[in-house]
C-alpha cells in the first residue's frame, strides 16, 4: 500500500454533503450518495505528493472514530450546510474537539455546502457531461452567511490558541460550495492542497524537532534487572 504524504480529513454533521463534495471533486459528478458508513478514503496524486482524503461519517454513532481519523491530519475541512444553522453549531460543539489529535500545524477550512439552494451565482453549472437536470430555484432560506463562517474560523484560531497572522487568512479558507453544481469545489480542494503541500515541504526541509528514543531505550534495557 502506498503511504500517503499528507492527510486531509473532512468533518461535519451528517447530510451536509461531505461525501458529495469529495465525489464531485474526484469524479467530477454529482449523484445521490449513500450515507457514509464509518469513513471512506481516497488517494489523490497532487504533483509529486500522495494526499489521502478521509471522508468521515457524520452520524453520532461514529463520532468516536473522529479523533482517530484526525490523528496527524495536515488539514481539516469543517463542513456545514448553508441552509441549516444547526450544522454550523454542530461543528463548534461536536467536531472541533476531534481535531485535537491533528498535526500541530494543521490548517482548517470552513465550508458551507449546498450554496446552489440559496445563491444564484452557485447555480452556474460547471462544465458537465450529460446530467442536465433542473436546478432547484433559490427558494430555501439561507441560514448561514459568509460572515458567520469567518467568525467561526476565528473561533477555531482562538481555540487552537494560535495567532491570526500565523495561519492562512479567513477569507482564503472559508468557502461556500455546491457539490451539486460544482461551484467552488475544485477551488476548495486545490487551495487546501496548495497550502498543505507547502507545509509538507517545510516539514521535509526542517526534520521534526524530536529526539530519537531508540538509543536511550536500548541502554536502559540492558541495565534493567533480569527477572526469571
Amino acid at each position, binding site marked *: 500500500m502506498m503511504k500517503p504524504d499528507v492527510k486531509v480529513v473532512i468533518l461535519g454533521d451528517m447530510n451536509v454533503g461531505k461525501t458529495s463534495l469529495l465525489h464531485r471533486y474526484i469524479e467530477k459528478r454529482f449523484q445521490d450518495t449513500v450515507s457514509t*458508513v464509518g469513513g*471512506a*478514503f481516497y488517494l489523490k496524486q497532487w504533483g509529486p505528493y500522495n494526499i489521502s482524503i478521509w471522508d468521515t461519517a457524520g452520524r453520532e454513532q*461514529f463520532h*468516536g*472514530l473522529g479523533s482517530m*481519523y484526525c490523528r*496527524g491530519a495536515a488539514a481539516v475541512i469543517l463542513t456545514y450546510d448553508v441552509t441549516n444553522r444547526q450544522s454550523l453549531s454542530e461543528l463548534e460543539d461536536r467536531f472541533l474537539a476531534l481535531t485535537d489529535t491533528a498535526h500541530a500545524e494543521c490548517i482548517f477550512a470552513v465550508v458551507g455546502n449546498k450554496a446552489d439552494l440559496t445563491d444564484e451565482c452557485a447555480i452556474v453549472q460547471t462544465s458537465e457531461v450529460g446530467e442536465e437536470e433542473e436546478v432547484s430555484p433559490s427558494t430555501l432560506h439561507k441560514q448561514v452567511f459568509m460572515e458567520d463562517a469567518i467568525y467561526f474560523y476565528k473561533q477555531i484560531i482562538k481555540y487552537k490558541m494560535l495567532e491570526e497572522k500565523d495561519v492562512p487568512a479567513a477569507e482564503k479558507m472559508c468557502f461556500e460550495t455546491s457539490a451539486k453544481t460544482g461551484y467552488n469545489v475544485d477551488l476548495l480542494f486545490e487551495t487546501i492542497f496548495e497550502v498543505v503541500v507547502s507545509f509538507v515541504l517545510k516539514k521535509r526541509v526542517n526534520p521534526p524537532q524530536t529526539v530519537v528514543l531508540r538509543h536511550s*531505550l536500548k541502554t536502559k534495557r540492558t541495565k534493567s534487572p533480569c*527477572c526469571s
Partner: protein
Amino acid sequence: MSIKAFELVPALERTLLIGDKTWINIECIECCGRNLYVGTNECYIYHFLLEEKTSTSGKLTFIATKQLHKYLGLKKPVNEIKAASALNRLMVLCDCSVNLLNMINLEPVPTGAKIKGVVAFTVNENPVTADPFCVEVCTISMKRKTIQIYAVHEDRVQLIKEVSTPEQPVALAADGYFICLALSTQYIILSYNTGVSQDLFPYNSEEKQPIVKRIGREEFLLAGPGALGMFVTAAGISQRAPVHWSEDVIGAAVCFPYVVALDEEFVTVHSMLDQQQKQTVPFRDGHILQDFEGKLILATSKEVYVLVPLPLENQIQDLLTGRRVEEALVLAKGARRNIPKEKFQGMYRRILQQAGFIQFGKLQFLEAKELFRNGQLDVRELISLYPFLLPSTSTFMRSHPPLHEYADLNQLTQGDQEKITKCKRFLISYLNEIRSADVANGYKEDIDTALLKLYAEANHDSLLDLLVSENSCLLVESAPWLEKHKKYFALGLLYHYNSQNEAALQLWMNIVDGGLEDTTRSDLYEYIIDFLSFCSDHELVWKYADWALQKNEEVGVKIFTRRPLVESQTIGINPDDIINYLHKYRKAVVVYLEHLVFERNIQKEKCHTHLAVLYLDKVLGLHSQSRNGSEELTSARNNLKNLFRHSQLYRVHLLLGRIKDTDLYVERAILHGKLEEHDKALEILVHRLKDFQAAEDYCLWNSDGKDPLCRQKLFHMLLALYLDPAVTSDALVMAGVDLLNNHAVEFDAVRVLRLIPDNWSIQLLSPFLGQAMRKSFHSKCMAEVALGLARSENLIYRYTKVKSRGNAVALSGKKVCQVCRGMFTEPVFLRSPDGALLHTHCATKSSSPSVTVQTYANP
C-alpha cells in the same frame, strides 16, 4: 455485488471428534502446518493430521486423521492453544495458566514450566527480539489492569515486562513493541517499551465482544462502533477505509484482499479494496473464525471447516463475466502483491484487455481505448471483430481462451447500423493513434490495410493522406476494396505507392476520359500532367504525351517544360527530341521553345531561329487576315520584335529574306540593325515609316551598353538623314532640331556646327548649344581633375623612390639571395622594399606580388 471468493470445505466431521458424546464442545483450535489441534470443554486436546486432496474434477477435500488425544486433567475447558513449532511446543491456556506441551506427544515439558495467572494470551508474530528459539507471549494477567510480556523458551518462561493499563484489558494483539488492546470502554495502542499509550476510539466491551486482530506489520483490525471493522496502524491512525460487517460479529480474519467476518448466521466477506461486501455464506452456530498462516479455519462447537480462497484469477474472471470491470480491475490491482511479478503482468494485461472489450461492447470507447492501450492489446484482436478488415492472408488467430464473447461486430451490435458506424469510427481513431506506436510493430500491414478499408468505406478524406504518406497497405487486399468502393483515384495512388505508375496513370486517364466515375479531384487532368512532369520514367512520359497534349496543348506541354532542370541536361529527355515530337502541336512547340529560349536561356541557334520563324509565321498569318492590326497581331508582333531585339543567336539573313517583301518595317529595321546596317535601318524608319521616335529609340537601344562613340555615330547618322539636302522637308528639319536639342550630349558639337545650315537661328538651337557647352566645359574640368590626381600620384611614387634609394645597400660575399639561397656572383641585384636582396632572375621567378622590386645598379 456478489462474488465467489471462498468456498467452505469441511475439515473435521462431527463423527471424528464428537461421535455420540454430544456434551463435548470445541473450545479452541490451532493449526500449524498439517497439524490440527482441537481443545475441548472437557479439558482434552486432540491432534489430527489434515491432508489436502484435490479430486480430478478440481474439487478440494480435506481428510483428517487422528493422531493422539490428551487429557490435561484439570476438568476445565481448554481456552487457547498456540503452537511454537520452532520449539516443538504447544502453549495451552487452561485453568488460568499457560502450560507447555510437546507438540508431538502432547506431554507436558519435564520442567513443568508455565505462565500462571493468565486470562488471555497472544503470540507476538513480529517480536523485536530475533531469537529463533524463543517466542514472545503477551498475556492479560489475572492481576487487575495488567499485561505481561514473556519470553517462552523450550522448557522455561521468562517475564520480560509488566505494564499496567488504564482499564481492565479484554482482548489483545501484539506486533513489535506495540500491543493493541481492547479495554472495557475503548481500544488503545500501547508501547510496552515506553509505556506510552494512545487512545484509539471508544468501544463498549460490555455490550459487544471486542475483536483485536493483527493483520500485518504494525496493522490491526478492530471491531468498531456501528458494526465497523476498523483498520488501525501501530501509530494509531487508519490507512484503510473501514468495512461494514454485522452488528453481532463474533470473529474476523483477513485473507487479502478480503476481511472475513463471522456472525451467528453468516460468514461475510468484505473487500479491503472497495469496502464492499462481496460474499455471504450461511453458517449457523459459528463459534471460531481464525486464520493460521493464511489458512482460514471456521468452527462450530462440533465441527471444523476450512474457508478455501478461490484463485484470484477465477474471481477476476467471474467479475469480468459479470461485466463488473471496475471491481475486476480493483481486485486485480489489489492482487499484485500476492502473485509473482511475471505472472501478474501477463495476467493483468489480459484482464485489461478483457475489460477493454467489455467497455467496447458497451460502446464506452474512451474507457475501452485506455484499457486496450494499457493492456497492450494485439490490435488484430480488435480488428478481427470487424468483418473483412483483416487481410484474407492473415494468419491471425484470436487468443485462446477468448478475450470476449463476440463473434463479430454484427453480433455485438445486433445489426444496429448506427452502432456499427460508431464502432468503426472508434476503430479509425484507435488505429490512427497506435499506427506509429510500438504495439503496431509486426502488424503494420494489418493496421494500415484495415484503416484503408475503413476510410474507403466511410468516404473519409484521410484515405488520400494515408496513401500519399508512408504506409504499409497491402496491395492485393486494398485494390479490390478500393475498386469496390469506386475510389479509383485513391487506387491510382496505391498503385503509384507500389511503383506501378502505369497502372495508376491508366486509371486516372480513364477517370478524366469519363470511363470511370470518381469525383475526388476535379483537377485530375492537371494532376496527371503534374505527375508526368515529375515522372522519371521517360518511356511512360512519351507513351502518354499524346494523350496529355491532345487534351490541351498549353497545359499538356508542361510535362516537358516542368521537368526538373538537372534532368534535361544529362540523363534527361533531349530537347531536340521534344521539339521534333512537338511538331504536330503548333501551340505546344511555341510554348516549349519559349521555355527553352527565355526561361532556360538555351544558347542554340536552331532554337532561336526556330522560334523566330514560328513567331514570324504567326505574324504573317494574322497579318494576311486582318489589315488594320488586331490586338492579337499587335501582341504577336511584339513577341517577334522582342525576340529580334534581344536574341543574338537567330539567323538574321534567313529571316530578313522572309520579310524582305512585307511591310513589317520595324522588324526589318531591327534585323538590319543586327547586321550593323544602321543606314538601312534608319532609312526605313525615317523615310518609310516616318517614325522619328522609333528612329531615336533605335539609336538608343542599338548602342545600349556599347562604346559611347557608337551611340554618337548612330546619332550623327540619323542627323545626317534628317538634314539630307536631297530630301528636305519641314518635318525632317524639325525632327533634326528636336534630336539635337533633346540629345545634345550625344553629339560631337563641332561636327554638328559644321553640318547645320547657316540660316538656322541661334534661338532654334539654343538648348543644344547650351548643353553642348556645358558638356564641353564639364569634360574640361574633369580632365583637369584627372590631371591633378595623376600628378599627385606621380609625386607619391617619386617620393617612395627617393626614400628607398636613400641608404647604401651593402652587398658582400656573405649575403645570399632570399629566393635561391645562392651567392651573388654579379654586381646587379634586386632589393625588395622590406630589405631582402635577390638575384634579378630569382625576382622574376618569385611570384610574390606584394614585393615591389626595385632594380639597383651598382655605383
